[in-house]
């Protein structure tokens, strides 16, 4: 980065106000804003342009920098998320430090919400605030840390294997860590995947074959993360592997010659025999991808008769029954009993409503929609009608949400194949009772489609379309300080702007550990996570945003308040200096939250790029402008 205008010179601020076509100038008197900005302290240039983001707009900035007229830049335009990077790039192109820049949002937060003189007044105040902050800006340098060309993927399901394969394809070494002795995760429990109808076993086998054949990928089965420290580019990880036992040993015995790559239906793809005895593996990874997956909701005893009536099962259980190749005939037969009528009940353990549904043992409700169960249920219904045409199928639903490409076809096909639909409300759900005229069970439900008329359906099997729940990752969450959403799934920084990233740099999310998603979506998310991780590791070093805490040692009295307040382990530590103990920040570990700033009574720690002095300058400018306009 060029050292031109490194922030040490007295501020010469350039203000550039955008018309945004007419988006801004139709409601804001841009000429007036420019005129008033020109009169502010330290402002040497104030200009406007129809589109500041255009090449001619950026040229204005570049010319003023290179001619020495300005050494700090304020652009007043649209939301910073759209063009902050654009203008920083233009500044860097002109040879100036790109962090000597401040943005005033006068479109989304002014011209699109206010009109008339008030809009111009507010735009003027926001520009003044940005100028106030710009006067306090200092040149910052990205934090550069060495990066290990190695990534660790936690979880060996479809998302984990996809991420591992895609990372390895970028030339990185990868450790794929899976808790069980098998790869495949929950997809191994499926028979056919939608909407392609491919056999889940074939999809998994193909993916696992790629992973197992790749010399750059080391698969650790029967393994869990036991220790974690470090930062992007250099995470220090320990993996504890334990010898398989109990059910895992029985499952491994199903694999002929313990051959890696063998798919065992409803279990997964074998990846070797596992360790003979417990062992610990130490790794240094540049990035971590979390692909820890989900769990199916387990209905509590008695929900729709589950656990009390053997004729009530879950959808994954039905899928396993239907996957049995011997299951053929005019009617479905379960445990020797012919199924004449079968009811599928949607939204079991999903979209739960406080006051209507009972919370789980942890006191929580699954208020989220699990998204995939509608299509999965309709897929099962279609398959039932196709394979067992004499078994009648009833779908009892709250709403049908077949949102994906090709998913709606299952709904249409289910209707065409004779599946009978009834719609219920959460307040009046179906009631399952034992016994019926010619059936094992009776399902009673007021049908919204029939103006609330109560239906009593004699059925031989009730299938509960159970939702997706977050896996119990508490140990991992605590160890790695992972953010968790209100729905208890792992939480990305932003669903649209940074959809697979966590606030701690170098840690990414892939698949259903983040939210309910289907197999294709999980693979997509894994690809995104792998691309993100690969992008930062491929150069051999990582450049991080410089917006991290910084200690002013002349003010620090060594109280340790910042260390106590810090949300990231080891981001701030106390070190001995000739004078006494002082706080020191590890920039690579600092998340840039600034909690330490408020904790320091001496004001000895600040967040670079977001200092209290800068905020105070903004407030001063806003108050001065607002009071002037209000007077």
């Amino acid at each position, binding site marked *: 980065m060029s050292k031109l205008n490194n922030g040490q010179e007295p501020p010469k601020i350039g203000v550039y106000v955008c018309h945004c076509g007419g988006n801004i100038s139709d409601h804001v008197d841009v000429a007036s804003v420019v005129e008033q900005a020109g009169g502010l302290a330290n402002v040497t240039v104030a200009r406007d342009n129809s589109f500041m983001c255009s090449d001619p707009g950026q040229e204005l900035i570049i010319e003023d920098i290179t001619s020495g007229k300005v050494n700090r830049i304020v652009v007043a335009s649209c*939301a910073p998320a759209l063009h902050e990077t654009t203008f920083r790039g233009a500044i860097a192109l002109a040879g100036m430090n790109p962090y000597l820049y401040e943005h005033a949002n006068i479109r*989304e937060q002014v011209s699109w*919400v206010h009109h008339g003189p008030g809009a111009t007044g507010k735009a003027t105040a926001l520009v003044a*605030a940005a100028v106030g902050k710009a006067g306090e800006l200092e040149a910052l340098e990205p934090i550069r840390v060495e990066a290990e060309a190695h990534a660790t993927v936690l979880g060996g399901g479809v998302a984990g294997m996809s991420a591992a394969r895609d990372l390895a394809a970028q030339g990185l070494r990868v450790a794929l860590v899976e808790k069980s002795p098998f790869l495949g995760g929950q997809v191994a429990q499926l028979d056919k995947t939608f909407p392609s109808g491919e056999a889940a076993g074939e999809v998994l086998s193909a993916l696992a074959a790629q992973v197992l054949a790749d010399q750059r990928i080391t698969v650790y089965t029967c393994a869990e993360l036991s220790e974690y420290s470090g930062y992007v580019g250099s995470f220090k990880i320990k993996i504890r592997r334990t010898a398989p036992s109990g059910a895992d040993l029985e499952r491994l015995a199903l694999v002929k010659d313990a051959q890696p790559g063998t798919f065992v239906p409803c279990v997964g793809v074998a990846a070797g025999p596992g360790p003979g005895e417990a062992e610990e593996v130490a790794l240094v990874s540049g990035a971590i991808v979390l692909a820890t997956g989900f769990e199916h909701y387990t209905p509590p005893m008695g929900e729709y008769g589950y656990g009390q009536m053997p004729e009530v099962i879950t959808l994954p259980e039905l899928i396993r029954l239907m996957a049995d190749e011997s299951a053929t005939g005019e009617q479905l037969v379960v445990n020797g009993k012919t199924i004449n009528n079968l009811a599928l009940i949607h939204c079991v353990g999903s979209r739960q409503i406080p006051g209507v549904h009972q919370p789980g043992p942890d006191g929580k409700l699954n208020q989220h929609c699990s998204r995939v169960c509608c299509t999965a249920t309709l897929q099962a219904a279609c398959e039932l009608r196709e394979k067992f045409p004499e078994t009648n199928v009833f779908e009892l639903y709250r709403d049908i949400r077949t949102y994906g490409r090709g998913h709606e076809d299952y709904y249409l096909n289910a209707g065409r194949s004779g599946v009978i639909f009834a719609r219920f409300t959460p307040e009046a759900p179906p009631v399952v009772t034992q016994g019926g005229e010619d059936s094992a069970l009776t399902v009673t439900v007021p049908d919204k489609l029939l103006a609330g008329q109560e239906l009593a359906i004699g059925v031989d099997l009730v299938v509960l379309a159970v939702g997706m729940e977050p896996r119990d990752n508490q140990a991992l969450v605590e160890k790695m300080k992972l*953010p968790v959403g209100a729905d208890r799934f792992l939480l990305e920084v932003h669903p649209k702007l940074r959809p697979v990233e966590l606030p701690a740099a170098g840690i990414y999310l892939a698949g259903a550990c983040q939210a309910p998603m289907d197999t294709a979506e999980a693979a997509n998310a894994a690809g995104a996570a792998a691309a993100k991780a690969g992008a930062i590791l491929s150069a051999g070093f990582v450049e991080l945003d410089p917006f991290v805490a910084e200690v002013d040692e002349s003010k620090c009295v060594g109280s340790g308040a910042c260390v106590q307040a810090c949300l990231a382990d080891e981001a701030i530590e106390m070190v001995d200096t000739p004078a006494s103990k002082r706080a020191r920040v590890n920039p690579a570990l600092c998340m840039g939250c600034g909690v330490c700033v408020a904790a*320091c009574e001496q004001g000895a720690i600040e967040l670079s790029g977001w200092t209290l002095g800068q905020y105070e300058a903004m407030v001063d400018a806003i108050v001065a402008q*607002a009071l002037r306009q209000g007077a």
Partner: protein
Amino acid sequence: MDACAGKYPILILATEDCSYPGANSVGQAHQNYPDNTYIIRTPTPALFPEKFYLDCFAKGVGGIIIMSCGVECPYEGAYPALAKRVNGIYALMKKQGLDIRRLRPTAICTVCNRAFIKEVNLMNQVVAELGAPGSEARAA
């Protein structure tokens, strides 16, 4: 906008991951709200010490809305830290005779348009009722 409330700016401390994009979402929907509101972007409002808030009121800020990410905060632990700090600020505000309604913590997501406007309008009513910051102490 109420003429009295308009004299006193309302500061909105908005998190760059949640409520700042939320405020932009209100703009994208072209929904109006009073123009005496000034949104300041921050990684998390948990970085502001008590003094910052008290200084703002002393300078003439009529009300402050802290718009955080709430429990969806990407910085694990920052929200509880903020909640604790707000309690401390309330105690100091009371000590100075400032009506604590002038400071309102709330959680606004990236698409919480209605909640955003509701909070802004509520604070405007409070500022219109109370007048200049500190006037309530003088009146008492």
